[in-house]
């Protein structure tokens, strides 16, 4: 191995090397029980009840969904809870054709970010209350052509809910 000055722009000169490779599995070994805390705890409870809750900072007017206990922009505690509609508008969307292990999916999956409607609140596209989730009811062409942008969607709730973001199956085309 050559530790001297780099002699070529191709990088360090190497002899042909074969070293053993040791597999180290972390599966099942790094396990956590994550504390949702006050804000996300109440959020999860609301999902179980089929509602989407957020918090409001009355100083700057921002609504936080997913909710936070504090306003990161004003650095103060939020003032109150607010219920958002389970309907909203698609801000961005993408299609995934492969799974985590890189195997090809039978059907591509659409994911997106949904800006949720909140009564008496209007938002720009920079900061808004919303969720990233699966989108359903759209064709491949809807996503590819970007017609999906601005489409109205509504949460499709699971009948048996347990207080998880997956209590919403997907946001469905209205």
């Amino acid at each position, binding site marked *: *191995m050559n*530790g*001297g*000055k*780099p002699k070529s722009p*191709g*990088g*360090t000169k*190497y002899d042909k*090397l*074969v*070293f053993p*490779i040791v597999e*180290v599995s*972390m599966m099942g070994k790094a396990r956590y029980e994550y504390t949702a805390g006050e804000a996300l705890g109440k959020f999860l409870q609301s999902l179980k009840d089929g509602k989407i809750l957020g918090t409001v900072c009355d100083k700057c007017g921002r609504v936080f969904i997913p909710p936070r206990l504090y306003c990161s922009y004003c650095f103060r505690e939020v003032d109150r809870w607010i219920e958002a509609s389970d309907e909203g508008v698609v801000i961005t969307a993408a299609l995934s054709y492969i799974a985590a292990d890189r195997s090809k999916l039978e059907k591509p999956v659409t994911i997106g970010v949904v800006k949720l409607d909140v009564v008496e609140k209007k938002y720009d596209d920079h900061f808004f209350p919303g969720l990233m989730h699966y989108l359903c009811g759209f064709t491949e062409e809807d996503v590819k052509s970007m017609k999906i942008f601005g489409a109205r969607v509504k949460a499709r709730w699971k009948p048996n809910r347990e207080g998880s973001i997956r209590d919403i199956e997907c946001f469905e085309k209205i």
Partner: protein
Amino acid sequence: MSRNLNFKHRVAVVGAGMTLFRSKLLETPQELAWLAARQALDEAGLTLKDIDCVVIGSAPDAFDGVHVKG
């Protein structure tokens, strides 16, 4: 407060080193760091004794599968 953006002292890079970029290098991360550091020190004409402080940046621990890597 006001950040002093008109800082007067200049800071120079006096040596640099770099390993190959490959999808599966066969050295350990420590060995790769050694190769690059050796080159940088040689180029600067310095030895470890001349170094006051070492700053290391690398992928987050979870990407390397090693905890407390720093």
